[in-house]
Structures are given as structure tokens and as C-alpha cells.
């Protein structure tokens, strides 16, 4: 199963300041451990929200809101995607990450198609089937 590990942003990450060398080295070592254990699928840091934007949906209207975002809970500075056997294993890996200072790291399980299973509404299922039939027909026509 896959887990997304979310790292919250702070003033420093929002200012685009890179962590100091010591933390950088520690984080590199930690990432290397994840890779060597065969559990790391992807890991990325994010630019400050000043480089991002939001799209707001209301009715038919789309409103663009440029960064920076002001609410602290909206700030995400980076993420890992890991593949492990259980939530406990994900927790055990996150516990080893070199963080400090009261920071809280969020662990979320990624939904797989089979997790959705019967929860997928019948209309969506039918639409999916129609879509693949359509695609198949288009393929035939092109031949």
C-alpha cells in the first residue's frame, strides 16, 4: 500500500530559504535510507506558495487566486510517496525522519482502484465502460 507523507511549510519555506547544510545532509541520508530499503517511490520539495495559485469553483465561475496563501494550514512544503506493508510501517519510517521543533508530519494512505470497489457509483462505472468502448471504436476507425 502507498502512503503520502506531507510536510507542512513554515515561514522559512515560504520565504524560499533552503534548510541549513546540516539538515540538508541529514535529510539526504534519510532519503537514501528510504531508497535503499526499496520503499521510496517519489519525493519532492515544493516552491513557496507565492509561486503557486488557487482556482476557486463556484457555479460555472472559475476564479484564480494567486499565491502566497495566508492560512498556515494550507501550506505544504514537500511530500514523499512510499510503498510499504502497513500503516504501522509508514509510521515507523516517518519516525526516523530528521524533524524537530514540534512539527507535525501527516501520513495519508493512497486510495487504490480496488479500495473503491463497490463504492464506485453505477453511473460512473457505466460511464467508464462507455468511455473505453468509445476509445476502442475510435481505435478501430483509425485502422
Amino acid at each position, binding site marked *: 500500500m502507498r502512503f503520502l507523507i506531507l510536510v507542512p511549510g513554515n515561514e522559512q519555506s515560504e520565504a524560499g530559504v533552503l534548510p541549513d547544510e546540516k539538515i540538508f545532509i541529514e535529510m539526504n541520508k534519510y532519503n537514501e535510507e528510504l531508497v*535503499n530499503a*526499496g*520503499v521510496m517511490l517519489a519525493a519532492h520539495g515544493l516552491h513557496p506558495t507565492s509561486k503557486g495559485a488557487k482556482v476557486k469553483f463556484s457555479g460555472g465561475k472559475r476564479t484564480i487566486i494567486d499565491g502566497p496563501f495566508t492560512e498556515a494550514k494550507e501550506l505544504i512544503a514537500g511530500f514523499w510517496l512510499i510503498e510499504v506493508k*502497513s500503516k504501522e*510501517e509508514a509510521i515507523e519510517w516517518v519516525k526516523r525522519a530528521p524533524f524537530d521543533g514540534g512539527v507535525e508530519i501527516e501520513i495519508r494512505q493512497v486510495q487504490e482502484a480496488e479500495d473503491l470497489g463497490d463504492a464506485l457509483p453505477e453511473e460512473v462505472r457505466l460511464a467508464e465502460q462507455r468511455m473505453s468502448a468509445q476509445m476502442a471504436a475510435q*481505435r478501430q476507425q483509425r485502422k
Partner: protein
Amino acid sequence: MAIDAQRAVEAVWRIESARLIAGLARIVGDVGVAEELAQDALVAALEQWPESGVPEKPGAWLMGTAKHRAIDLIRRNQRLGRKYEELGDDLLRLVFTACHPVLSTEARVALTLRLLGGLTSEEIARAFLVPVATVQQRIVRAKRTLTEAHVPFELPPTPELAERLASVLEVVYLIFNEGYAATAGDDWMRPGLCEDALRLGRILAGLVPDEPEVHGLVALMEIQSSRSRARKGPSGEMVLLLDQDRGRWDQLLIRRGLAALQRAEDRGGAFGPYALQAAIAACHARARRGEDTDWKRIAALYDALAELAPSPVVELNRAVAVAMAFGPAAGLEIVDSLATEPALGAYHLLPSVRGDLLAKLGRHGEARAEFERAASLTRNEPERRLLQKRAAASAERG
């Protein structure tokens, strides 16, 4: 609460056990003894952690506990503990020991999953649909064989290295294939086993990063895994590659696979057997629609694979690729050369492919006979129905 603590201990075990066993084996010089010492430490953790909580450095705790007993043991055996060497080397020794040629293939698979994958005997038994006692027996016997054969806890000598590495890769790919195309049971796919194999492959790639074939194998497994979601139809049936909804392929795994293939090629390994198979898989992965597939390249890659590792199954696949690239007649020529191949005598895909090519050439009478023969050979019910349908269609047109 007690169950939570147990699950936490299990999680620590999965992360730490391989390194723990490898480190201990370095000290005591025997994988079987090392595994028992590690197990003892696990039992101690299961007793103590639910009370005391998981220690800050659980790996160090397990190692400390086990080492304590190891040193007792060494004193008793009047042996000097060798200096604790670099970790990566220990893990690599463990890999080579678990896949040692004195062991049967089944034993290698069980020992590798147990010692390197951190799987319990119960998990291995569930994955291979055999009784737990069978797995336990296999592991006990394997450890005894290693001890009796005086297999040293060492890296293979240089002249043997290539061959021994090939045996390790074979074990990992075997585990993967059992997950990807299960030979027993109701489920023909067991994704958990594929994940275990991928994890082992990625660990290996970290241990011997200069070996191109390790990256080739990882590439092959990543790309094949990328399709698992699309391989299963709504009622659980298998969907063939060209009929799959490519939108459901896992692009992350494809990218990882292509990157691993690039690493294999950068290290001069473009023509290793795993890298070649990965390159074929990559051709499919790169094609956004089935008809965009570069069949000429696939046919050329199969030519190279057939040179390197000739087998009737590779030849049959080559025939399909050649037919797609250069027309059904060219493919049929290869298929016909396989007609007397004893290894394919009961292999339903041979008449199935031949039937398909004959139908494309308008030779419907012959095609019908081949489809019927294929239907009588397959053990898979949905496939049998499909072949019977094709036989009936050929009969109508013939």
C-alpha cells in the same frame, strides 16, 4: 492496545530484520544461527515493548539484545567475533547466502523472502498457498543445508560473481512472476508478492548499483507492475495488453521503470536478458495507443533476446511481434518452425497464435482447427470461451 503494539513491533521487524540478520551473521558466521538470534530478539521485543513502548532507536535495541546473546554464544564456542564491517556488504552477503546454489529454488525463494523481505512464515505460506508447516520446514532445512555445506558468510569470489548474481536475480523475478501470473489458486494476480519482489529488486539495485542487469530487472518489474490495474477487467478476467485501457497504467511506475532501464543502458547493459525484456515492455509503455506501438523495434529486440537466451516461448513472442511489424505471413513462418517443438506441445498459446495469424490470412478452415485445439489445451475458463468463440467465427467465414 496490545494488538497495536504488536503491529508496531512487526513494522519495526520488517524494516530492521534484514540488516539485523546480516549484521549478526557477520559476527557468528552462520546465517541460521543469526536468524535464530534475531528471532530471539524479536520475541524479547514482543514481550517488552507493549509495556515499555517502542524504544527511540528500535533497530539499535534489537541489535543490542541479539548481540548480547551472540557474544555469549561466541564465548561458548571459543570463537572470536570479527570486527563489525560495513552494513551494505553484510546485506549483500546475506542475499548471496540466501540464494546459494546448494539450496533448491523453493528454499532460495522462501529464505530470501524471510531473511531479506522480512516476511513471516505465515505470510510466505499465504503468498504461495502452501501450508505454514511446509514453509517452516523449507526454511529449517535450508538453514541446515547451509550449515552442513559450510557455506561461508562471504561474497562469492570474483569469477563466480556473475553467475551467482544471475541466480539472485532469478529468485527475485520468480517471486515477481508468481505474483504477476499466479500458477495456483483462484486469483491469477497477487499484487502483494509483486510489491515484495519490487522491494527486493530496489534493495539489490542499491547494493550493487554498478550491475546493469539489476537495473534491467527492476525496470522490467516496474513497467510490468504499471499495468496491473488495467490487466483485470470488471468481472476479474484478464485483459490482454492491446485491449487494456492505457489511461489506467501507472505513470509513476512507468517513469521509474524507464529511468531504471536508462541506468541499465548507461552501464553498458542494453543487451542483458532482463534489460532486453524491459526494453520490450518499455516500447509498449511509451505507446499512448495500441496502434502507436513500435512493432519493428519490438521485433528487433526479440531477435536479440532469441540470440541471447533462445527459448521456444521467446520465439513464439517474436513471431507475434514480427507478424505485427511485417505482416501475418512473416509471423506464420516462425510459428510453423515451432510446430515440432516438444516444449510447446501442450502450450495453448501456440495454436492460439497460429489460429490468429491464419485467420488474418483468410485461411479460416485451418484457423478454426487451431482455435479448437487451443481451447482444448487451456486451463483457464474465460480464455477457453474466448477461443471457442473465435473457432465459431472462423467456421462461419470458412
